[in-house]
């Protein structure tokens, strides 16, 4: 039986295309300082640190090295670095969770730092993620891959461009409530539809920005949580699943059987039988609207092909039955290797009732969904709860 683990502190930095006031380690420091303050702890109280970043965007091989003093390098703290593409943030949190659940440590910090603004062409970096023998020459970045999945979903289920546009509109609407959001701009379905196609059918106003930002999350053991006696979000369950990098081979195509499998395992672990009724809010790592569709369907919030209708029903809006991305999500802020950790941070804030203007009233169960590498080779889910049972 795993030891129970709770999140007791969250620290985020502001986000922007380029946060020019700070160097890489200074940005990390800012997030760490805020998380420590939020938890009422000092750096000395942290037993170990798990760090995540995607090196290439920042133009530094292993930026964790330069940043290490923001994670207790001076104090010789146990420190490891995770890199699994876009899912790095979620993986970082999941490994940090295991640091505590295994009883090896009592207080652990997950830290993510990303400076996508330092490089002048993010898609050139993303191209280097493809198998150089087969795919590298077709100038594949990220957007074209998601466009392929969008057209597949449209063909299989008849989902419409306006439905994808609406998912982006809702994220933009929510981002206005989040002080840490990068893009703060109200847009309408008409605005989205009129914005230029980047890789058809994905339009400009459906694309995530590239953001600089850092986030730190502090996890503690059940005993420590009681001792601290602060607002806490229990990590009720976590699942992480890997599939093939060749998304043409991926079982289920747009039905995302790998995320569905992770979801089933999580629900079993947490005793969830009807996710739509039991889960109060979702933070979803969706850099493009198609991910809303694939994830909501795979995780059982609606039937396959029905996500468009679910979104049109207003259920995923603030005030709806299942608000998705009260933070504004990744379409409005994408610190890539940190974005998965921010989902967990935001879901925790909902449970801790610290989400201010973006608070979902009475949220007791929040689901954080992360994914990355080759359009979802890695998928992950974490359920955060107010009460253990």
């Amino acid at each position, binding site marked *: *039986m*795993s030891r129970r683990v709770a999140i007791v502190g969250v620290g985020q930095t502001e986000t922007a295309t380029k946060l020019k006031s700070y*160097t*890489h*380690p200074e940005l990390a420091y800012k997030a760490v300082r805020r998380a420590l303050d939020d938890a009422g702890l000092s750096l000395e109280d942290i037993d170990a640190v798990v760090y995540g970043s*995607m*090196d*290439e965007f920042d*133009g*530094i*091989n*292993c930026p*964790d*090295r*330069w*940043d*290490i*003093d923001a994670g*207790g*390098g*001076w104090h*010789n*703290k*146990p*420190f*490891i*670095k*995770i*890199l*699994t*593409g876009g899912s790095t943030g979620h*993986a970082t949190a*999941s*490994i940090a*969770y*295991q*640091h505590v*659940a*295994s009883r*090896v440590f009592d207080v652990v910090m997950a830290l993510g730092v990303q400076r996508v603004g330092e490089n002048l062409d993010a898609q050139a*970096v*993303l191209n*280097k*993620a493809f*198998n*150089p023998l087969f795919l590298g020459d077709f100038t594949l970045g990220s957007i074209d891959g998601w466009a392929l999945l969008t057209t597949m979903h449209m063909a299989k289920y008849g989902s419409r461009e306006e439905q994808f546009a609406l998912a982006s509109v809702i994220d933009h609407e929510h981002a206005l409530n989040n002080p840490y959001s990068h893009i703060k701009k109200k847009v309408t379905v008409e605005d989205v539809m009129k914005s230029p196609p980047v890789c058809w059918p994905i339009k400009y106003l459906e694309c995530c920005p590239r953001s600089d930002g850092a986030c730190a999350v502090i996890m503690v053991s059940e005993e420590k949580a009681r001792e601290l006696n602060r607002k806490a979000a229990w990590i009720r369950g976590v*699942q*992480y*699943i*890997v*599939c*093939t*990098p060749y998304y043409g081979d991926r079982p289920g195509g747009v039905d995302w059987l*790998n995320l569905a*499998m992770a979801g089933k395992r999580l629900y079993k672990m947490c005793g969830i039988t009807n996710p739509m009724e039991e889960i109060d809010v979702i933070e979803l790592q969706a850099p493009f609207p198609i991910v809303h569709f694939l994830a909501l369907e795979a995780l059982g919030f609606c039937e396959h092909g029905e996500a468009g209708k679910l979104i049109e029903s207003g259920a995923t809006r603030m005030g709806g039955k299942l608000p998705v991305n009260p933070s504004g999500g990744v379409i409005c802020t994408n610190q890539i290797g940190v974005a998965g950790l921010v989902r967990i941070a935001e879901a925790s804030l909902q449970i801790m009732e610290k989400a201010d203007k973006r608070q979902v009233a009475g949220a007791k169960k929040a689901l954080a969904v992360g994914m*990355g*590498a*080759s359009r979802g*080779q*890695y998928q992950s889910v974490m359920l955060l709860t107010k009460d253990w049972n």
Partner: protein
Amino acid sequence: MSRVAIVGVGHTVYSDPGSLKEPYWKLDFEAASAALDDAGMTKGDIDAVITASYDLYDGIVISAQFSAGAACSWWKDGTNLAEDGAFAIPSAYMKIRSGMYDTVMVVSHGTIHSHDVIMKSSNIACDPFFFRPIASNNLVLNALQASRYKDIYGISEEYAARISVMEHGNAMKNPHAHIKTEVSIAEVLNSPVLCWPIRALEYCPASSGASAIILATEELASWRATSKKIAYVKGIGWASETYQIGNNGSLDKIASTVKAANMAYEMAGIKNPTEEIDVAEIAGVTPYQELMLLEALGFCDFGKAISLVEEGVTAIDGKLPVNPSGGLICTNPVGGAGLFSVAEAAMQVMGMAEGHQIEAANVALAHGMSNVCGPAARASCVVIMESEK
């Protein structure tokens, strides 16, 4: 409390990357298959996977995506650390101890094909303002540390050469070692200076190859027990160091190894490492580093490593043989080196170290380092294992 066991170990051949023209995922696959064979398992028996690799060394963004399948992680929890391979062991240990998984596969490789790539990657691991413009890389920064250590403790070049001669001699007996050449003290001292005080025959090669280790719960290990011996993980420890190598005094000791060793010794209940440990595999890429490590690991007092070597304690027939494998000076898969050391140490206690087996090796210590900027922000990992009693 249930122990965590090492039930399978696999090595590929280690060789010159120039002659071994296979992609890294093929090496991962070979090592993972060898570990499965050794454990008498099939891929379905593995619950979770941890790989350790660096994108820049592999030349692919999220290079782990292609290792994942080779390490049998489809439909499973799979994570990648951008750290030296040794660090995957504590992460695997925590995965099992968290109660989430019964078996974890760990795989790490090195395939980097030239010192130019290593040094350039290392240069861009340094901060862009102070270290990078001064042509820093891990060799240059290791040489800085070596010169200081040499000066403070009056280490002669002959003593350093002696370590290299010993390592080369040991490697001759190891079927998995990369460099197999007998060298004399005179040859080492006459070899060209790379970065003074480090000479060509005192510096690690770049090797191509992979290692894999399977860890499992004690229950599963004993249930599966074949005629083969099992290595139980007795202690783990890991720690980091400041990036600011200009801080006073931070260069004379490898502080992260001191801290990592203390954590591991405490967990293992080891009071007197020299008496209680039967064999050690440690990650010195130069003789100076190796001497510093003997001190940091508590095998002798600071500044006394030379006497330890002179008394023959660390020789292959000594009281505490160090690097019977030939160490990193003869086999250095960059990024995977620490897992090579863990595998070698595990093979010693499992009685599988063909040709270089230490008699009655019941307790072994393995040590790895993330050394990408040399002493700047270095991290160390120590694993102590004992054979089935």
